[in-house]
């Protein structure tokens, strides 16, 4: 009897209609399979690189979050002794005659600075964009890998090196940099102004310059792959929303990070070569400095030209992930796909012309600030549209409330809460009072420190099977969700009241001022919530690592019945993603519950008279 080979419909379609790029003619006996180093360490496979970014991001998140626990202990329990931390933190804990230990103020500021730097750059930029752009772009556009896998590999390793340098700076005797993650000169330019502005700052600059290189290399790949390597039939308007988000994010990064680099180069010149780009009229350490003609405001312009797009670089990928997760788990198309794409573009474009809303009180000509107010409040409109579209995606759905989807829904809640306070801050007159208070701290933590993380969690839970061929545990995921949702609001909601009361940010202690010292109970509450929240995150970490080896195995290629291409690759991933031809695409990515069919994958050809695009 001849063997009957049964092909699935999917396999047949790919064979007949797929795009044959002769990939496998070149790559049998693949050199990629050789050597531990090439396979696991210096891999040029985008799926491996994605996991490298993710694990590194998780490690940095633990470090950054631990720092926040230490400084929150000081803020919440200033009377309690931290002497028990002395074995670990050594001279940074100052113990007085009665044995009560406090953080030294320099160390407090170093922790706050490092926390911000680590979370914003290493976790929410590299860990979020790096992971999901790398994982999903080739898979969802239908490409074998990125346009330049070699540059992609370099992108990860530059990030790794940036991390090594930053990590090393934590152990300097003069301490890591401590002038705030924004690093404004003259504080950051003058070692006499602060111990951390010595070697600590030098290493901070080196680390972030390496980081900029990493982002640029990654961005070049993402943009090129999306524009040039889409499979047959994958027009731009058929791309799943995460790809649009990662694509616009990469453009933002490409255009804004070099400006940050230029600001850093000038700061390096001022620090090491005696120039006066940012310095003028300074008397410090008993002497007048020989620097005239510079302006600290110039640095702020250059920094925030990156700084503002940066926060959209953080939130857009999370938004893209959330759109996908909500849609797949509601069994409905994302509502208003085109509007969602246009709003991503609008947010991307507008993000370049609002930067000076971080500088309303910097001494900038107030007339100029008018324009920044207008554009800042305009950017609320596409953001609002997205929120309404997400909610409408849930409407009329058949919703599966798994961990990924819960985090996606939680993202929407957090984005609403955090985004709305942005409207207060963007109005310059209100910012007179709110600038540099806890109101700002509440705002950006809710949108970045929570919402963006929720997007990241949604993505991790959802695509974990794609990365590790197993599922994360659902029960633990739900505990993680509920714990984080409740505790995150517990931490950051009260900060609005602190800010309204005028309490400034970056204060080591509130005891000096009558106006600020009556919130001891609230600060205790926030600290306790932060500690509990940290413990809950550890549940996620345990779940993540345990599931890599012992999670429930993936038994079908497309466990969620999703329409996008990443679920058409074999369970065990291969280089080049598809063992045969790359699937060709005939429709957009969101045909769920359309015309009697529960879902229609993108590779399914159109029926007579069917509309495949929206």
């Amino acid at each position, binding site marked *: 009897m001849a063997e009957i080979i049964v092909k699935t419909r999917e396999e047949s379609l790919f064979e007949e209609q797929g795009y044959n790029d002769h990939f496998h003619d070149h790559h049998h006996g693949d050199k990629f399979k050789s050597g531990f180093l090439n396979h696991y360490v210096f891999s040029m496979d985008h799926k491996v690189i994605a996991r490298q970014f993710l694990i590194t991001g998780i490690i940095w998140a633990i470090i950054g979050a631990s720092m926040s626990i230490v400084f929150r202990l000081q803020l919440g329990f200033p009377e309690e002794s931290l002497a028990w931390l002395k074995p670990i933190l050594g001279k940074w804990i100052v113990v007085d005659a009665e044995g009560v230990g406090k953080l030294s103020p320099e160390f407090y*500021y170093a922790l706050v600075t490092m926390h911000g730097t680590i979370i914003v750059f290493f976790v929410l930029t590299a860990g979020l964009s790096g992971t999901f752009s790398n994982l999903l772009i080739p898979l969802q556009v239908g490409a074998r890998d990125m346009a330049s896998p070699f540059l992609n590999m370099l992108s990860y390793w530059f990030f790794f090196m940036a991390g090594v340098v930053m990590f090393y700076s934590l152990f300097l005797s003069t301490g890591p940099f401590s002038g705030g993650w924004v690093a404004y000169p*003259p*504080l950051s330019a*003058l070692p006499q*102004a602060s111990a951390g502005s010595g070697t600590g700052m030098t290493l901070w600059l080196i680390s972030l310059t390496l980081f900029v290189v990493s982002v640029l290399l990654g961005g070049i790949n993402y943009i090129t792959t999306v524009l040039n390597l889409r499979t047959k039939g994958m027009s731009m308007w058929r791309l799943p929303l995460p790809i649009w988000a990662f694509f616009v994010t990469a453009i933002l990064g490409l255009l804004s990070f070099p400006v940050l680099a230029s600001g850093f180069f000038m700061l390096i010149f001022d620090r090491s070569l005696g120039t006066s780009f940012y310095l003028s009229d*300074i*008397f*410090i350490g008993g002497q007048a400095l020989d620097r005239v003609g510079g*302006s*600290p*405001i110039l640095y702020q312009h250059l920094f925030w030209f990156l700084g503002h797009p940066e926060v959209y670089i953080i939130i857009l990928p999370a938004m893209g992930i959330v759109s996908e997760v909500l849609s797949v788990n*509601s069994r409905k198309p994302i*509502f*208003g796909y085109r*509007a969602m794409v246009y709003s991503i573009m609008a947010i991307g474009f507008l993000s370049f012309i609002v930067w000076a809303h971080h500088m309303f*009180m*910097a*001494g900038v000509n*107030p*007339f100029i600030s008018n324009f920044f107010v207008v554009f800042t*409040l305009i950017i*609320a*409109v596409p953001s*609002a*549209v997205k929120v*309404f579209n997400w909610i*409408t995606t849930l409407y*009329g759905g*058949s*919703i599966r*409330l798994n961990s990924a989807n*819960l985090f996606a*829904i939680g993202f929407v*809640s957090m984005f609403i809460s955090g985004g709305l306070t942005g409207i207060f801050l963007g*109005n310059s*007159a*209100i910012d*007179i*009072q709110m*600038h*540099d208070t806890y109101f700002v701290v509440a705002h950006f933590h809710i949108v970045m420190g929570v919402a963006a993380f929720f997007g990241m969690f949604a993505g991790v839970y959802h695509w974990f099977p794609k990365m590790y061929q197993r599922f994360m*545990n659902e*029960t*633990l995921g739900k*505990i993680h969700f509920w714990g984080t949702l409740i505790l995150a609001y517990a931490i950051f*909601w009260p900060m609005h009241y602190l800010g309204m009361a*005028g309490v*400034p940010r970056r*204060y*080591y202690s509130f005891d000096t*001022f*009558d*106006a600020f010292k*009556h919130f001891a109970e609230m600060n205790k509450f926030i600290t306790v919530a932060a500690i509990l929240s940290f413990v809950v995150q550890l549940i996620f970490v*345990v*779940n993540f690592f345990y599931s890599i080896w012992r999670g*429930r195995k993936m038994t079908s290629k497309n466990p969620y019945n999703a329409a996008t291409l990443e679920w058409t690759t074999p369970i065990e991933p291969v280089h080049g993603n598809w063992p045969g031809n790359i699937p060709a695409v005939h429709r957009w990515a*969101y045909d769920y519950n359309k*015309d009697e069919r529960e879902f229609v994958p993108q590779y399914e050809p159109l029926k007579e008279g069917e509309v495949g695009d*929206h």
Partner: protein
Amino acid sequence: MTIIGALVIFTLIAVIVVQIGRVNDLAAKIRGEEEVMRSGNDATGRWLVVFMVVFLVGCVYSSWHYKDVMLGYGPWEASSEHGKEVDYLFNMTLVFTGIVFVITHILLFWYAYKYRIQQGKKATFFAHDTKLELIWTAIPAVVMAFLVANGLVVWNNVMPDLGPDDAYLEIEATGYQFAWDIRYPGKDGKIGDKDFRLINMANNTLGINFNDPAAMDDAILSGSDVIKLPVDSTIRVKISAKDVLHNFYLPHFRVKMDAVPGMPTYFIFKPTKTTVQMRQELSEYPEWNEPYDPTDPEGPKRWQKFDYELACAELCGKGHYSMRRVLEIVSKEEYDAWAATLPSFYKGNIRGTEADPFRDKLLMDYEIQDRKAELDATVDPLWSKLGSAVRDSSITEESLILKLKYVFFETGSSNLDKLSSHELDYIAGLMKKHPHIRLEVAGHTDNTGDAAANRSLSQSRADSVKASLVAQGIAASRLASNGYGDTKPVESNDAEEGRAKNRRTELKVIK
């Protein structure tokens, strides 16, 4: 040891967590995946609704609980004119955002529950609706436009600088690691120039440029002095920094502006509540009636000890959180009286020191004016009193002596420097005003050099002074002139300070 303990505990917790996770998997195997999923889904949906209710109620409750930090409400009213507008904008925004917050959260969580998986129900293929999109694009756009318009009206009223025709009081605040120096303008109402290259930590820490006449009468508060300002007056704070970025922040007044080294900034505001008035208003709130010092329950209450405070609001180094100064808002009269007593920094600390650019100038214009005012204040009334027949027993021997201040002789001679005419002519005028006054001109020296020579020099110098007064039209019979040499020192001649004091010419009222 602690570390090992922590690791053990962490591992145990990890194991427990993993077991919890596996419970659900086991349940799924037993009861069937589908059913477990469905009931879990229903439960989760219900909890989402519970969360929504608890969350929204919690938000409203906490706002009510913290109403006393709501801007413009209760004790947290702004103490400045523009501050009220800032508070109003905040609350206007709160209304709009609050409505959106509540509605979107209700819909979000309600839909997540209502449209959860249900037996036999399919999702609806509802992909887009252009009209709906346009509506919910237009409405936020309109609301934003409204908020922007209102906000920019306030912004453009508050922020632009004053013009030369505007009346205001200007003070200067200079931030440095880690305190504020406050400078008042003196009678001329102008803050003098400064330059960081002139900074001298010993006597001119602000680097004031005393070549600028406006700087002569500026007063610098000491570190612990309270900053007093008049209520209902326009104040312009000139803000600068010496070393790194700082920020001048008055929370009660809604005043905030970065202090930038190399680029002076400013903020203009009008205080509307005096400190006393504010304390009175605060006394009506229960939390302000708590004792100020929790360890002293019988002591003063919080409202009694209330003060307006100045803080720094831009990270400036390790002492950023400690840059406190107290402000006091007082009535215009009280302010004027207090400001008049502020000593000129130049006159008190600089004049005659090595930091004085005019140390080679013997007599400054203001010194002439001040001396005339001094003579008017002391000598004039005294001489009037001496003219009356009634004997005033409070007049002491000492008070009859007027020591000449700005009368200069060339070294070793009795020739009067031209500058001396300012004081001598003025005294001549006073003598004319009080014709009954007769004066002895007494010359004194220190004990350096020959006693006879000192005697002779002091005599001839006294004669010069007498001659100068006579030349102004005073009858010679009204003036005696005597040289006492070093016989009548007023202080020990051991130190130069004492010797300088002994070298003097005095005018004493005689019968």
